[in-house]
C-alpha cells in the first residue's frame, strides 16, 4: 500500500485527507474547498481504503456511520411497535395469549400476535438488531479512534498556510515588526489553561483534547453494557423465581441449593386513612390507596449437611421486614415483596349438631392444609374425614374433585359417628351447601367459623451481571460527559513576513472560542480572527 509523502516531509498513511503534520490538503478536490472538513482531523479512515475481500466488505459495512444511524433508527421504530399493545408478560393470565390479543384488540390484535410482536423484545430479529448496533459500535470506534489519535499526536506547531486559511476562524494582522513578542498572549493563554507549544516563534495553543476521546469512552461503556446483557443468558448468572409463603410457614428458598430458608411471620397490608387531613380530597376521589405491603420474615441458613426433605438444623441469619423498595439482601440474592394473597383459608370449624334439637356434641377444627382422618369428641361421638377437596369443583364427569391443593373452596365428606348411629351418617359439606347422599341424616356438621392466613408472594432474584451493567453505564456517562461538557480548542498563531496569522478551531461551541480568543488577544495588537461561516451568511 502506498504511503503519501507530504511536501513538509511527513509520511502519511494511505487515504489521509489532511497531512497529519502540517495540515496541507493531500486530496486534490479538498484543495478547492473554502473550509476544511476537520472531522477526524482529515485522517485516513481505514475502512475507506481497503475494499477487496469479503471480510473487508463486512468490515466497511459496519464501519459506516450511515449504517449505524440506520440501525439506530430501525431499532427505534421496532421498539415503538412493541408498545402499541401490551407485551405478553404484561397481559393478565386469564386466557392464552393467542386468544387474548384477538379478544381484546380484534383483528389488529390477532395480527400483532401472529407477527410475533407480543414478544417483540426477545424476538430473534430484535436481538440481531441490537447485536448489529453492538458490532457497529466496536468497528466504527476502532476505525476512527486509531487514526484520530495518530493525527492529534503527530500535529506540528507550524501549519501550512492552506490549512490555516481554511479554518473557520482565521485572520491576518499587518504588523510593523514581525518579531513582536507574544508574551502577553501566551500569558493569557496559560490563564485560560491552554497548553502551549512553540516552534520558530509560532504558537500552537491547545486544550481539552481529551474531550475528543469522549465518544470512544462512551462506546466502550455501551459495549460493556451489551456484554452484560449477553452474559445474562449464561446459566446461573441470572435467577428469577417466585416464592409463595404463608404466614407461619418456613420454606426453603428456591435456587439457593437448599442452603437458605425463610419463615414468614406476618404479612401486612396498610391503606391510607380516609380521613387523612392532607390527602382526604385525593382519597375520596380515588378510593382506597395502599400505603404499605410488608412481609416480616426471618432468614435461616442450613447448618448441617442434611439433604432435601430431611429435617434441617437451621441457624437464624436475620430478621427483616421486606417492603416494596426495601428487598432483603443476602449473599448475592435479593427477596422482593411483589405479590400477596389476603385471607387464604387455613382452618375451618364445625359443631356436630343434632338437626332436630340443635344440641351440640363438640366442635372440630380442621386444618385445611392437613386434615386429620378422625376427630374424637368423646362419649362415643366422633367425626371421620372420608374425603377432602381443598379446591372443590364437580369435574367433567360430575364427580366431586379438587382443582389444586390450595384450600380456596374446601369441601368434605364427613362420617358422623354417634352412640345411636355407630356406623355413622355420611354428609357432604362444602361452603354454603350440604348434601346428604343416602338418607335424611339426624345429625349435621354445623359451620362454626374460619381462620385465615395471608400469603406473601416474593420474587427471588440473583443477578451476577449487575456490576457489569454498572461499569458499562458508568463508563458511558463518563464518556458522554467528557465529550459533551468539554471542548477541544486549538489556536494557531504564526508569523509570516510582515503579517501575523491566527486561526482557531473547536469541535463545538464556536461562540465560546470566539469570546475566549477576544479576551486572549486583548492588548496584543493582533486582530480577532473572522468567522468565515458568518461572513458567507451575511453576504
Amino acid at each position, binding site marked *: 500500500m502506498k504511503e503519501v509523502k507530504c511536501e513538509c516531509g511527513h509520511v502519511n498513511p494511505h487515504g489521509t485527507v489532511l497531512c497529519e503534520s502540517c495540515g496541507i490538503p493531500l486530496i486534490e478536490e479538498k484543495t478547492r474547498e473554502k473550509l476544511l472538513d476537520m472531522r477526524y482531523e482529515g485522517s485516513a479512515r481505514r475502512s475507506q481504503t481497503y475494499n477487496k475481500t469479503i*471480510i473487508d466488505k463486512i468490515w466497511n459495512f459496519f464501519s459506516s456511520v450511515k449504517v449505524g444511524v440506520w440501525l439506530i433508527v430501525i431499532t427505534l421504530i421496532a421498539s415503538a411497535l412493541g408498545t402499541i399493545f401490551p407485551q405478553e408478560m404484561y397481559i393478565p393470565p386469564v386466557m392464552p395469549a393467542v386468544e387474548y390479543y384477538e379478544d381484546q384488540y380484534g383483528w389488529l390484535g390477532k395480527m400483532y400476535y401472529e407477527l410475533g410482536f407480543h414478544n417483540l423484545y426477545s424476538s430473534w430479529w430484535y436481538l440481531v438488531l441490537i447485536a448489529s448496533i453492538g458490532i457497529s459500535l466496536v468497528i466504527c470506534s476502532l476505525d476512527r479512534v486509531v487514526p484520530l489519535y495518530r493525527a492529534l499526536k503527530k500535529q506540528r506547531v507550524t501549519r501550512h498556510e492552506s490549512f490555516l486559511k481554511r479554518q473557520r476562524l482565521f485572520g491576518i494582522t499587518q504588523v510593523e515588526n514581525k518579531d513582536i513578542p507574544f508574551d502577553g498572549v501566551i500569558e493569557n493563554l496559560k490563564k485560560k489553561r491552554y497548553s502551549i507549544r512553540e516552534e520558530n516563534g509560532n504558537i500552537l495553543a491547545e486544550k481539552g483534547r481529551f474531550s475528543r476521546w469522549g465518544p470512544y469512552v462512551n462506546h466502550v461503556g455501551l459495549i460493556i453494557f451489551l456484554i452484560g446483557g449477553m452474559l445474562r443468558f*449464561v446459566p446461573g448468572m441470572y435467577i428469577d423465581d417466585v416464592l409463595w409463603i404463608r404466614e407461619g410457614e418456613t420454606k426453603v428458598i428456591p435456587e439457593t441449593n437448599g442452603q437458605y430458608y425463610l419463615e414468614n411471620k406476618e404479612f401486612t397490608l396498610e391503606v391510607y386513612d380516609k380521613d387523612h387531613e392532607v390527602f382526604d380530597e385525593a382519597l375520596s376521589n380515588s378510593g382506597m390507596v395502599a400505603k404499605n405491603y410488608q412481609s416480616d420474615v426471618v432468614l435461616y441458613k442450613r447448618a448441617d449437611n*442434611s439433604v432435601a426433605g430431611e429435617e434441617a438444623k437451621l441457624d437464624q441469619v436475620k430478621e427483616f421486614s421486606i417492603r416494596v423498595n426495601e428487598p432483603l439482601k443476602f449473599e448475592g440474592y435479593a427477596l422482593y415483596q411483589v405479590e400477596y394473597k389476603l385471607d387464604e383459608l387455613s382452618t375451618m370449624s364445625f359443631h356436630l349438631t343434632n338437626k332436630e334439637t340443635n344440641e351440640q356434641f363438640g366442635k372440630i377444627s380442621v386444618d385445611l392444609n392437613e386434615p386429620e382422618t378422625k376427630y374424637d369428641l368423646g362419649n362415643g361421638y366422633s367425626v371421620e374425614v372420608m374425603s377432602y377437596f381443598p379446591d372443590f369443583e364437580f369435574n367433567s364427569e360430575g364427580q366431586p374433585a379438587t382443582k389444586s391443593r390450595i384450600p380456596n373452596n374446601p369441601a368434605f365428606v364427613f362420617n358422623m359417628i354417634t352412640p345411636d348411629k355407630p356406623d355413622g351418617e355420611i354428609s357432604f359439606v362444602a361452603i354454603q351447601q350440604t348434601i346428604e347422599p343416602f338418607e335424611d341424616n339426624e345429625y349435621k356438621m354445623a359451620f362454626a367459623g374460619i381462620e385465615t392466613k395471608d400469603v406473601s408472594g416474593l420474587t427471588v432474584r440473583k443477578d451476577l451481571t449487575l456490576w457489569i451493567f454498572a461499569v458499562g453505564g458508568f463508563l458511558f456517562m463518563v464518556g458522554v460527559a467528557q465529550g459533551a461538557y468539554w471542548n477541544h480548542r486549538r489556536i494557531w498563531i504564526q508569523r509570516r513576513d510582515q503579517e501575523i496569522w491566527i486561526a482557531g478551531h473547536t469541535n463545538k461551541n464556536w461562540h465560546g472560542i470566539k469570546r475566549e480568543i477576544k479576551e486572549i488577544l486583548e492588548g496584543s495588537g493582533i486582530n480577532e480572527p473572522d468567522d468565515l461561516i458568518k461572513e458567507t451568511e451575511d453576504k
Partner: protein
Amino acid sequence: MKKQRLIMRSIILILLGAAVVYTLYANFTKDDIQKVEVGKKAPDFVLSDMNGEKHRLSDYEGKGVLLNFWATWCKPCEREMPYMDSGYKVYKDKGVQVLAVNIGESDVVVNEFINRYDLSFPVLNDKNQEVLTAYGVDPLPITFLINKDGIVERVHTGEIIKEEVMMDMMEEIKP
C-alpha cells in the same frame, strides 16, 4: 501489513459473530434448561412414604430408580398411575424402584387416591416442597429416570401415554 490487517479484522469479526450466535442460541434454549441435567448426579433427598417409612435416594444406588412427581388433581398424572403400577410389579424384582413423589397435598387426599388406584409402589409426600424445589419441578407430571449409579439418564416431561412406554423406561434403567 495488509495481510496483518486482514487477519486482525477476521479475528474481530469472528469473535463478534460468535458472541451474537451464542446469544441467539442461548435465548432460544433458555426455556429448556432443566435444574437437574441429564448425565449429572440426581440430587439426594429423604422423604417418608405414607406408612411413615423413610426413603433416601442414595440408598437405592445399585438399583434403577423411576422418580415421578405428581398431584391428585393433575389429570395426566392420574392416567399414568396404573401403568406405573403394572410396570412396578414387573420390574421391582429386576432391580427397578419406583418412587412417586406427591407435591405436598394433605395425607387424607393422598391416601384416598392410593386406595382408589390400589397403588403398590411407595408414594412419598414432599410436605415442604423441598425436593420439588431442588428438582425444579414445573409443570406436572415429570419423570426422572435414574440409573444404578445415581446418574440421571433421561427426563420425561408430561404424561406417559402408554403402558409400553412405561415398560421401556424401566427397561432402560434396569441394572
